Structures are given as structure tokens and as C-alpha cells.
């Protein structure tokens, strides 16, 4: 579905964690066309010096009611402006934007890894997977118990495993340390969070086959030919897909502000080729 510019009406707004908000908007065209991993670019109504829109992942969508939710942290004047909206207020929304997560039809077990606000990037995929009858484990990492995403906001069918930096809830340590227990079980993994977390996960994904003793048998058709960066096939084939973040200007691919370095040495636009990439499409050590 091509992107549209629509007026989205606020239905509900609440603070689910300190400084973190969940807002529901009535935007039928967005809710109908969106897939997990995509995002919207939203204009703030505070025009006193704010000149850029704010990108938000589709957190959940409900096609039946024509609503979608966004989950964000207040980090400045722009995001704070959204928290002052009241039900009935309208915002200017551009979307759906970017490329979605690609689930292989044969995948039964999906591992979702989220760091902090990264939950907003993978949350919708949990809904889609459960709807399609797949099993989902969500590994979640945060600094402490006060930052842990409430389990009540996840579907009941999801297995939810938490790690905190200070050990105040769940595993004491990084969320990446939980992956070992699930990498054999998972058919595919999907992650969103801070860059160091994604880099660590990408490193784990590289060594996974060797650790599991998986042999590459035979030659698949088209085997050996590299897939085009950003192609749905490249994402579907990779064990790990990551949702990347970058400062954004236009969000439609026109300004080249939001790139990450691709393995071929060509910068890739997070808004257009991404925000979801196969983890082996990103040049993690490029220093970008």
C-alpha cells in the first residue's frame, strides 16, 4: 500500500511507564495497510521552532476498529507535545512507511528481542504471529524493574522473559545473554533496541549455525547468488531481522539523512530500504 497523509484522531492516551506513553489513534487507512515493522512520520502541533516530524513504529493495529497505537518516550519538546493531546484531537500522520518484518511461511517459532523502547518496534509482530498460529517468545531487556514493559500489554499466548541491568527483575544482566537458551528453538529472530544490543545479536546470529551443528545440505535454487539489500527475500532468509533507528528528516527516502552502512559499502536508507534489515545486510563495524 502506498503512503498517505491523513488526519488521525486521538482515542486514548496513557502513561504506561515513567515517561513512556501509549497512545491510540483512529486512522483507518493506516490500520488497514500497515504491517509489523513499518512506521508513521507524525507532525507535531508545536510549530514554535520544531521543523521535523517524529517517526513512530506501528506498535499495534486493530483493523476492525480502524485504530493503531504508538509507544514512545518523552525525550524533548516534540514528544512532550503529544502527551498533552486530548481524545478527539487530530494529528497529521504520514504512512505507512518503510519495509516490514518478513516471516517465512514455514516458521513455527519466533524469537522477539526488545531493548527498552525497542518493544515498540517488535510488539506488532507478536500480534501478527499469534494470529497466524505461531509460537512467540519475547526477550526483553531494561535498566531496572521500573522500566519493564508490563506483561499485561502483551498477548496471553506470548512467553515473556525479562532481563534487567540491575537484577531488580528477571535475569541479572543483558537481554542478549538470554538468547542462547532459545536460539535452537527459534526458526527466526526479530530485534529492536539500542545499537550495541543489535550489534551483539547480529554477532550471535553469525555463529548460530556452527553452534547448532546445522549443515547446509544441497544447493537451493538461486543459492550462492547474493540477494539485493532491502529485498523481502533477503530478510526472510536471514535468521535475524533488526529494526534500525537513525535521526530522520523526510522519512520517504528523499533526503538521505537516516542511513546505515550496508555490507556492500553503500549507505542504506533506514526509512526506505529499512527500518527492518536482515542482520547480515548491515556493516556493523563500519563505525556509522
Amino acid at each position, binding site marked *: 500500500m502506498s503512503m498517505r497523509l491523513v488526519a488521525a484522531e486521538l482515542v486514548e492516551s496513557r502513561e504506561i511507564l515513567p515517561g513512556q506513553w501509549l497512545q491510540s489513534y483512529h486512522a483507518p487507512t493506516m490500520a488497514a495497510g500497515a504491517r509489523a515493522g513499518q512506521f508513521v512520520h507524525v507532525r507535531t502541533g508545536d510549530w514554535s521552532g520544531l521543523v521535523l516530524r517524529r517517526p513512530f513504529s506501528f506498535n499495534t493495529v486493530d483493523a476492525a476498529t480502524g485504530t493503531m497505537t504508538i509507544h514512545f518516550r518523552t525525550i524533548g519538546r516534540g514528544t512532550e507535545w503529544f502527551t498533552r493531546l486530548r481524545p478527539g484531537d487530530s494529528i497529521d500522520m504520514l504512512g505507512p512507511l518503510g519495509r516490514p518484518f518478513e516471516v517465512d511461511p514455514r516458521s513455527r517459532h519466533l524469537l522477539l528481542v526488545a531493548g527498552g523502547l525497542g518493544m515498540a518496534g517488535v510488539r506488532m509482530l507478536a500480534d501478527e504471529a499469534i494470529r497466524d498460529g505461531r509460537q512467540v517468545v519475547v526477550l526483553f531487556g531494561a535498566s531496572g524493574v521500573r522500566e519493564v514493559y508490563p506483561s499485561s500489554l502483551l498477548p496471553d499466548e506470548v512467553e515473556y522473559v525479562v532481563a534487567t541491568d540491575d537484577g531488580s527483575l528477571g535475569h541479572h544482566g543483558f537481554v542478549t545473554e538470554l538468547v542462547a537458551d532459545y536460539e535452537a528453538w527459534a526458526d527466526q529472530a526479530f530485534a529492536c533496541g539500542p545499537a550495541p544490543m543489535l550489534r551483539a545479536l547480529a554477532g550471535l546470529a553469525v555463529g548460530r549455525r556452527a553452534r547448532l551443528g546445522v549443515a547446509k545440505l544441497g544447493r537451493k535454487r538461486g543459492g550462492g547468488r547474493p540477494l539485493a539489500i532491502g529485498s523481502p527475500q533477503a530478510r526472510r532468509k536471514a535468521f535475524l531481522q533488526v529494526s534500525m533507528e537513525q535521526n530522520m528528516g523526510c522519512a520517504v527516502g*528523499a533526503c538521505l539523512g537516516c542511513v546505515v552502512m550496508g555490507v556492500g559499502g553503500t549507505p542504506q536508507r533506514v526509512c526506505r530500504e529499512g527500518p527492518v534489515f536482515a542482520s547480515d545486510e548491515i556493516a556493523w563495524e563500519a563505525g556509522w
Partner: protein
Amino acid sequence: MVSTGARQGAGAPRAVEPARTAIHGGPTGGSARESVTGGIVAISGAAAAVDLTVDLAPTRGGLVLANPILVASGTFGYGIEYGDVVEVGRLGAICCKGTTLRPRIGNPTPRVSETPGGMLNSIGLQNPGVDAVVERYAPLWATWRTPVIVNIAAESVADYAEIARRLDGVPGVAGIELNISCPNVGRGGLQFAIDESAAGAVTAAVRRATDLPLLVKLSPNVADVRPIARAIAAAGADALTAINTLSGIAVSADRRRPLLGNVFGGLSGPAVKPVALRVVYEVRQVVDIPIVAIGGVTELADVLDFLAVGAVAVQVGTAIFADPALPVRLVGQLAEAAARAGHASYRPFIGTALPAKPGVPSAKGVEYRP
């Protein structure tokens, strides 16, 4: 994804068409959509009769635009990225992303940062190179009613001339805009834009390389822009674009280090508008060629301000990111403003704020200027 630019068949480049066949910006039948910004503006009544055409290369067979609202280089990609959200066929012209002789990967990230009333960017001219631009985009541009002006950048006079040569005669390329805010590698990294002899030399070299209409984009990062503007006009430029971004930096709040990957960035948006107005005002008084103003246009009032200080057209840049429908909306609003004032064209708005005698200081006290 195909743009909504209205087809005129496999047309010749707009630049060589005489003025009388210039197509006026009428509705192109964009798809109806719910839009908070009122993207579709039906120009009706007296406004529809207002003449918005403008010639940016009057001495060279003309670069006639249907209206004086352009979109700025670097903010509108190659004209296709905004898809159905912007009716490309209603724009006066498109300046495409800065194009270099060879592909460039651009600067490390972060590349953009919001600032009070504006933004900094340090994209670093990421582009696939002139040959790829000609191959990938020009055939599509040739089918559009809207002229596409290719913005070019290089680090040597020879490279500028070579890019221009490769664009000369290409169907779909209506003109060239020189971005001279690049370091001149032959002269120790000094920008072409801050040195009148370098600016004149590069303009002359491109002028010799192509018959395409030629716009040259002035940098505000100079003590006195007037000699540079004079040199560029004398070297054969058809029009000037003023201004490019102002050099600035930002500091990362959490790391307390320069925020942008390349440290330095270009400031754009409403914050730079007064500077842009001042530069257009100064330059208008020392050159006769048309000036296309750019810098912080976010509403009709800004367009009228730039016309008042002598510009004949404006480019919308940063504002597109927040309000993609703005440029098309401005076309309708400008026609309505002219109709309301009882004008048959928008030209009476031009130059009203200039001093009665060019060059004579109009201020009554100390002039605050660089």
C-alpha cells in the same frame, strides 16, 4: 512507485519550448485522499486567471516555469520519493539531489539534527553519480510537465564542466543548478562559493560546457556576497539561487561531543530566513539576472517577503519534511493573493521592499551587515 506528474507524452525537454506553450499549473487529477493539510487546492475564479509563469533564463531561449514555486535540492530526492502525497505536476520546478561526477557514499551518521527553528544536515552529497542519474531518472523526467533542474557539485572546475557536458542535451534535464559550496581541492579546500574568481571560473567553465539554463547557488557563509554574485552573473549564469545553508554545529546532549558524524552541518529552515532575505536584498541591487530565493519558506507570507526583496521565484526545502503538501498549496495561495490584490500576475509583488535607488543605503543609521 510512479509519480503523479502529468504526462505530456514523450516530450522534449521543457527548456527548449517557447514561452507561449508553457503549460499553466492546473489540477492534474490527483487521487482524492483524506488529508489534514488540504493537499488538493483547486484554483478557481479570478485566481485561475492569474499569470504565475516565470522565465528563469530570459536571455537564453528561456526556462519557463508554470509558477514560481520550486522544491529545493536535497529535500525532494529525484521527484519520485513522495509518490502520491505530492502532486509533482503542480510544482514550478524540481531541483534534484546534488549530483557529482562519480558516486559518493556521503558522510558518517548522524546526518541530521533538529535545531531551534531549523535543522542541521551533513548528508555529504550521497548520490549515485551523474551517469546513473541520467540513466535512472531523466527518462521519467522527460515525461513530466514539471521541469527538473539538476543540482551539481564537484571539487574541481574540470569536474563541474564534465558533469554539465554529460547533462547537456539529455531529454528530461531542463537546467542546471551549481552547488558551489564544495571545497575546491585544487586550491587547498577553499570553497568555490567564498572566492569571486573561483566562483566566476567555475560558472564560466560550465557555461562553455552546456547550453542548458544555468542557476548558481550562493553561499551565505561569506563576508560580502555581492562581488561573488557579480562575478557569477558576469560569467554567464542565467539566474542565482540564494541561499545555501549556513555552516553550523551541534553538540550531543548525552555524549557532550559534536553530534553530527561530520561535525559541521548546514543550517536550514525558518531560522535562516532573515539571512536569506538580506542576501537576496543585497544581491538584487548588484545583478540583473533573476534570483530564486530559498531559506525558511513555510507559508505564503514568506513567499511574499522574498518577492518583496526582489526574488522572482522561491524554493521550498526544509518545510517539505513537515508539510509535503506545502509547495503545491503555495501555488494556489499565491494566485489567490494576486487576484485579491487585483493583479493579473504575481509580478507586482516583486521588488516592493527594495530601496528607491539601487545601492543607496536605505537605513537611517548604522547598517548592521557583514
